[in-house]
């Protein structure tokens, strides 16, 4: 993998390395952790060089002070949960680090009651929480997460994501997570690095990367949805109202979301229909006044870039474009069904 990745991660923030399976994301993490030795690389974290093959510099994993959590919890089976969590604390070479609040970490992750249990007595979610507590107990300067939620069921995953974000903020630990799941990237990331064909193609704040993909391949790997930062402003009878840049959208959402919650509203371009002239009566909930910014051809389909107060794309057939007589600058109405908008909570 050709990874030119030079990025500042704030304390408590999460960089998501997003890419398809087999792109070399796990290898990247293992090399940062010092578990794999790259043939040719330079790795520097916090001004400290950990690996420079040209200069012959190699810092072993023991002296890097990184926390690593794999997809599988990899707890020590012969030790109790408490001994697992404290495993790295007494070790030599840890003297200079900040002494972390182990009890606080265990409490935040909800594992303090499991102290006396053995790993085989834990559920998958509990085991992964213990693995996180163990990694954070040593006060790492960087936390590395390799698809840590992939083996968990959906409700467990959502809860654990929330707790991990809270924990990173509480401990001020910067983190790097690799995943091929864009929903996960959106739910937990602050920064995003997109890997396409073994190369890091774009890095930046997550909304910026989703909003302005650097090129068509990055856009394709991120999916065809518009990802819009939004806030819940109202909820009633299974419909929530979200504000995107001041424009209110109605969204059918089964799970209640409290007003004020930060979300991403995701809209697929093929779910956006265009109308001209006076509004027709239809079941569609959202009718947005929009200006056509540009039209580009994607085979038999045209992609119409719109400005609705926020950027939005619509995919329409060439025939529809001709019938609507669309051109850049034209005023149209963009219609989106309430069931076609997908919300990803941010916390």
């Amino acid at each position, binding site marked *: 993998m050709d990874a030119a990745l030079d990025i500042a991660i704030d304390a408590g923030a999460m960089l998501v390395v997003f890419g398809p399976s087999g792109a070399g994301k796990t290898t990247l993490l293992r090399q940062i*952790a*010092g*578990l794999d030795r790259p043939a040719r690389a330079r790795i520097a974290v916090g001004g400290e060089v950990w690996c420079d093959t040209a200069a012959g510099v190699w810092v*072993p*994993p*023991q*002296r*890097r*002070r*990184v*926390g*690593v959590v*794999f997809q*599988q919890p*990899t707890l*020590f*089976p*012969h030790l109790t949960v408490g001994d697992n969590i404290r*495993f*790295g604390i007494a*070790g*030599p*070479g*840890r003297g200079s680090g900040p002494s972390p609040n182990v009890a606080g970490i265990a409490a935040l992750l909800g594992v303090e009651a499991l102290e006396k249990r053995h*790993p*085989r007595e834990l559920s998958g979610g509990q085991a992964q929480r213990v*693995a996180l507590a*163990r*990694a954070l107990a*040593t006060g790492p300067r960087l936390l590395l997460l390799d698809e840590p939620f992939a083996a968990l069921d959906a409700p467990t995953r959502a809860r654990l994501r929330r707790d991990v974000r809270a924990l990173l903020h509480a401990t001020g630990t910067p983190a790097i997570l690799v995943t091929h799941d864009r929903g996960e990237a959106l739910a937990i990331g602050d920064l995003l690095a997109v890997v396409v064909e073994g190369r890091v193609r774009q890095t930046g704040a997550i909304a910026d990367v989703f909003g302005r993909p650097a090129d068509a391949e990055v856009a394709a790997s991120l999916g065809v949805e518009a990802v819009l930062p939004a806030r819940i402003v109202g909820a009633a009878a299974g419909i929530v109202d979200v504000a995107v840049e001041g424009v209110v959208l109605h969204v059918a959402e089964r799970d209640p979301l409290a007003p004020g919650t930060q979300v991403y509203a995701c809209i697929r371009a093929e779910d956006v229909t265009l109308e001209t002239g006076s509004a027709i009566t239809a079941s569609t909930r959202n009718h947005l006044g929009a200006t056509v910014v540009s039209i580009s051809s994607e085979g038999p389909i045209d992609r119409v870039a719109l400005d609705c107060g926020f950027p939005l794309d619509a995919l329409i057939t060439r025939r529809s474009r001709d019938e609507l007589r669309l051109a850049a600058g034209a005023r149209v109405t963009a219609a989106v069904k309430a069931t076609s908008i997908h919300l990803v909570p941010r916390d």
Partner: protein
Amino acid sequence: MDWTALWLSVRLAAATTMVLLIVGVPVAYWIVFSPRRWKFLVEAVVALPLVLPPTVLGFYVLIAIGPLSPVGRAYARLAGHGLPFTFQGLLIASVLYSLPFAVQPFSAEFASVDRRLLEASWSLGVSRLATFRRVVIPLSVRGLVTGIVLSFAHTLGEFGVVLMVGGNLPGTTRTVSISIYDAVQALDYAAAWRTSLLLLVVSFAILAATYALQRSVWIKTRV
């Protein structure tokens, strides 16, 4: 019953097992964790006693510790007597002869420890040696017990190597298997019967106890 020979065999087996535990664990560690490409040569050397006739091994040990070798001469200068036909000489031969019976179970068990556990430990700041002590050893109890028991039982029953290196000195090098041979040579079948049966029962009991232990819960440290 030749109690002197039996007691000598037990002492020899116990001493051999102790030495093999001290020597075998580092050798097994090196075989499993060394990145060296030529380590298969060391593995082959360790396994040699499995296929070599005991007389061949005994012959080379006899030469190696004898008065014509530098090792034998150095020992003779320090101790005042040579190694052949002594308990110490027997011990050296036994250790070599039983080496695969300790090293192979040890290394098989070390190798079966999930590598991700070692990586987790290293990432937590724990050195390779401490990781071996705190993770690999506790998870290899079965293999260690197997290696210890096999070494003990194998040494208890050795014959050819002992005869080559130790000879047949009562109380010093006449082990239980040689005493059985002597009894048969002297047509004392009753004595041969008793001692053979005892050896059979003891060997069976040791092995049965080991396999039973490996099934029990307290030693099952693996999930």
